[in-house]
């Protein structure tokens, strides 16, 4: 039910506006959407710029945010748009719970290095180091010793096994995590400080797939059945997380706030902040008022309208703005089982007919950035020199004529061999922004002799029709994290039961994907992915639309913050004690 509560989450609003999945499932993979800034590659602001108004740049620390020496102490209040359904992200596929607990309270065996933009390499967390067998199928992790749970008991391999037991237990709600581990063959603990994971095949993302799984204390969960684990009444972790991370859980007042405090027994670098408070505020207008009054130190996600019309002098002078382009893109898929979309010339023509500059520039305040790449747009898997197809209706009409789609019966709609170029465009309900530009597409297509109808569909029906391929064209967002393995989407094997919803088939892409999957050399793999990108650019199975930025505000009182794909790193932030006097 928290449907509404969640749909009103700012982050989800962004999502709703773009995709419109109102039920607000946030995406739970490696690339947690994170507030950040203008990416380094396209930095508008010169490196090291200190202008008060400048937006932050991903991966680099703005000079204003690093003056002075870090000081311990103080409290930081983060304004969040929604209350999580529970704080156990294994039972609720909810992004807010992940943000609040993952790497704060809980830790995983390994994590992505948040400051390693744009590569986000895997670095140790609870596992100190690991070995990979020569056949790349066996991973042996050596666990950090001397780590204590927040309740004082020691951490050991038993906890890791208990956690993975719950994740793999078919009766728990950890479906979203389980599906990350499809390739996992077995896991075991030869001794208290070692765990061994065996994979069915060599898989370059094997390590990445462990990143999202928070290790939970065996003494709490080992005795629970799957159903008991799901329910808050029987699983204390759902309301009261106990982890090994730098922050300890203190209190949760429903719909009010969630309080974390520094873990003074933390094994690593202890956080500077005494307390970290997530304040829940569902109303974006009120949230901005709180920011103006200085009652919060961070607004995690503001709306595009708020961003564009931010005219408050207080906000402009005392707050930093962060605009991060995440590893999430909006796309339009053309179902290739439809006769008219089978021809790549038609698909190219459709892309050429879409006025992306107009849509982004005029309808969306110029905030999104155009993309033409499946992968994280800043990563080496994308060919940065490849430009998206332009808006060119004349070329599009020529292509359509060439492909034999002409209006032979004079009804104003192009046809070929008795098939009219007429289709239905499926949109997620409540994707207000999507519906807005989709209506524009309808007009532009009509001018080119293509008839398109819009159809808004609830997510429950939408996802079903995607898997059944029962749609003509559709639009959605994909988010894959800084590194992605897109076999499900582009390999012909993904047509049945996978995410290849448009039934795309290309032998070369199939081959490249298979090879890339077991390719552990980053450069070689990225070259393969760039080759796939070139093929996709040529064939246009999708029209890649844009990447929508995540917009946040951070008080200048807070220092040491840095934007990254992996949300905010509160461990490195500190409160500038001189701020109050210098303002």
């Amino acid at each position, binding site marked *: 039910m928290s449907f509404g509560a969640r749909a009103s989450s700012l982050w989800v609003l962004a999502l709703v506006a773009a995709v419109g999945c109102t039920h607000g499932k946030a995406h739970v993979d490696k690339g947690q959407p994170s507030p950040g800034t203008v990416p380094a590659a396209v930095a508008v602001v010169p490196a090291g710029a200190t202008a008060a108004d400048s937006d932050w740049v991903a991966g680099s620390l703005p000079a204003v945010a690093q003056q002075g020496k870090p000081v311990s102490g103080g409290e930081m209040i983060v304004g969040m748009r929604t209350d999580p359904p529970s704080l156990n992200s294994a039972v609720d596929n909810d992004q807010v719970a992940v943000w609040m607990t993952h790497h704060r309270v809980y830790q995983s065996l390994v994590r992505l290095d948040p400051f390693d933009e744009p590569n986000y390499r895997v670095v140790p967390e609870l596992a100190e180091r690991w070995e990979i067998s020569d056949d790349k199928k066996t991973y042996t992790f050596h666990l950090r010793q001397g780590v204590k749970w927040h309740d004082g008991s020691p951490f050991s391999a038993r906890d890791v096994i208990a956690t993975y037991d719950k994740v793999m237990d078919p009766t728990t709600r950890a479906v979203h995590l389980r599906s990350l581990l499809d390739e996992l063959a077995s896991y075991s603990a030869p001794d208290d400080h070692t765990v061994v994971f065996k994979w069915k095949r060599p898989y370059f993302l094997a390590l990445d797939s462990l990143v999202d799984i928070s290790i939970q204390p065996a003494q709490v969960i080992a005795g629970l059945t799957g159903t008991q684990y799901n329910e808050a009444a029987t699983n204390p972790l759902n309301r009261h997380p106990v982890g090994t991370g730098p922050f300890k859980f203190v209190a949760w007042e429903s719909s009010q706030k969630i309080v974390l405090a520094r873990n003074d027994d933390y094994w690593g670098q202890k956080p500077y902040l005494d307390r970290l408070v997530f304040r829940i505020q569902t109303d974006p207008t009120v949230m901005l008022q709180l920011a103006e009054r200085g009652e919060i130190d961070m607004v995690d996600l503001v709306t595009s*309208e708020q961003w564009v019309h931010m005219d408050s002098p207080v906000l402009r002078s005392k707050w930093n703005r962060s605009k991060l382009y995440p590893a999430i893109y909006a796309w339009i898929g053309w179902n290739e089982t439809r006769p008219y979309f089978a021809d790549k010339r038609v698909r190219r023509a459709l892309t050429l007919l879409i*006025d992306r500059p*107009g849509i982004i*520039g*005029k*309808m969306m305040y110029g905030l999104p950035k155009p993309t033409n790449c499946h992968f994280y747009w800043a990563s080496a898997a994308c060919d940065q020199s490849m430009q998206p197809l332009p808006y060119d*209706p004349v070329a599009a*009409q020529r292509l359509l004529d060439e492909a034999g789609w002409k*209006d032979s019966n*004079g*009804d*104003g709609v192009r046809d070929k061999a008795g098939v009219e170029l007429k289709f*239905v465009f499926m949109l997620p*309900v*409540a994707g*207000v922004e999507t*519906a*807005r*530009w*989709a*209506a*524009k597409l*309808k*007009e532009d297509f*009509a*001018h*080119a*002799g293509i008839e398109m*109808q*819009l*159809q*808004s*569909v*609830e997510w429950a*029906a939408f996802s079903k029709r995607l898997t059944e391929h029962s749609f003509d064209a559709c639009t959605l967002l994909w988010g894959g994290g800084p590194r992605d393995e897109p076999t499900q989407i582009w390999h012909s094997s993904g047509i049945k039961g996978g995410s290849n919803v448009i039934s795309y088939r290309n032998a070369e892409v199939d081959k490249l994907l298979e090879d890339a999957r077991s390719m552990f050399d980053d450069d070689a793999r990225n070259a393969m992915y760039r080759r796939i990108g070139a093929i996709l650019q040529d064939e246009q199975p999708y029209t890649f639309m844009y990447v929508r930025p995540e917009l946040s505000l951070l008080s200048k009182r807070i220092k040491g913050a840095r934007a990254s794909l992996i949300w905010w790193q509160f461990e490195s932030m500190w409160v500038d004690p001189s701020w109050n006097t210098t303002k």
Partner: protein
Amino acid sequence: MSDVANLPETYLRMVSREYMRHRLHRLSLHAIMSLALLALVADFVACDRPILLSFRGTLYLLPNLVDPPALRAYDNQRLADEMNPSDWAVFPPVPWGYNSHDLEAVLAPPSAQHWLGTDSGGRDVLARVVHGSRVSLAVGVLSVAVLVSIGMFIGSIAAYFGGVLDLLLMRFLEIVHAVPTILVLVTMLALIMPTGWHSVVAMMVVIGLVRWTDVARLVRGEILRIRTMPYVEAARALGAGHARILLRHILPNALAPVLVAATFAMASAILLEGALSFLGFGIPEDMASWGGMLNDVRGHTGAWWLAVFPGAAIFFTVTVYNLAGEGLRDAIDPRLRA
């Protein structure tokens, strides 16, 4: 009323005279007819093609209606730009279609270019209000037709046959009546997932399917009353069959109150369509629906023109139908006049 039943012509004349006596009722009738006319000629009032065009040596008759393939890629703006001095055109007063996007004027307030402003996609509000009358009228008329047919059918067989059938039908009626309307409509529309004009058909059917209970109850009551009247007894004595008695003798006399109910139902169907589209169900974004236009205000509370004009259109339409219903009721049964 029994004396009246035998003289339908006079009765009709009497009702219409009674109705026309009041200025407000007369006005409402004129307004209803004007709205219907507007819906009919919407393409002449607001369209992205001219009404008459002489372009590059060809004369196009009514391109706004017939959509000549040669002009497919053109709208008024492009034509105006590309016309030679020898070309001429008669443009509609509102030179925008209901789905014409003017990206240079997104969320623009009323101006000379867009008399009632534009929405968040740069579409002309006036053009959309004009075309919205079609959806509104279509949903109203058709859903009332559906609900009156269902209501008359169920009401009359329940009343005429009585007994167990009556009991069962009335139970069924109670179930349908007690179901929360909006929730059921939302569920049904989510099930149908309509597109384009299908959504209007879907809307009318679902509204008709849940809103027939009042008419059924009314018809049942009327028939129970009329059934015992002497002339029906007489017809039965003369050996007329069930169907004949029902269709020839009873239903025509029950019609007058149904007509009143239908007029009010029209107003409430238009309201319901507006509410559903406002909630984001039903009429899709590429159509023009008044309720759907209001929905656009939610993210843009500064755009007052998005709130005022489509809402005023619904308000006006509902008011004239309610007025007409009122007048009709007074005319049919002068006793009801307070």
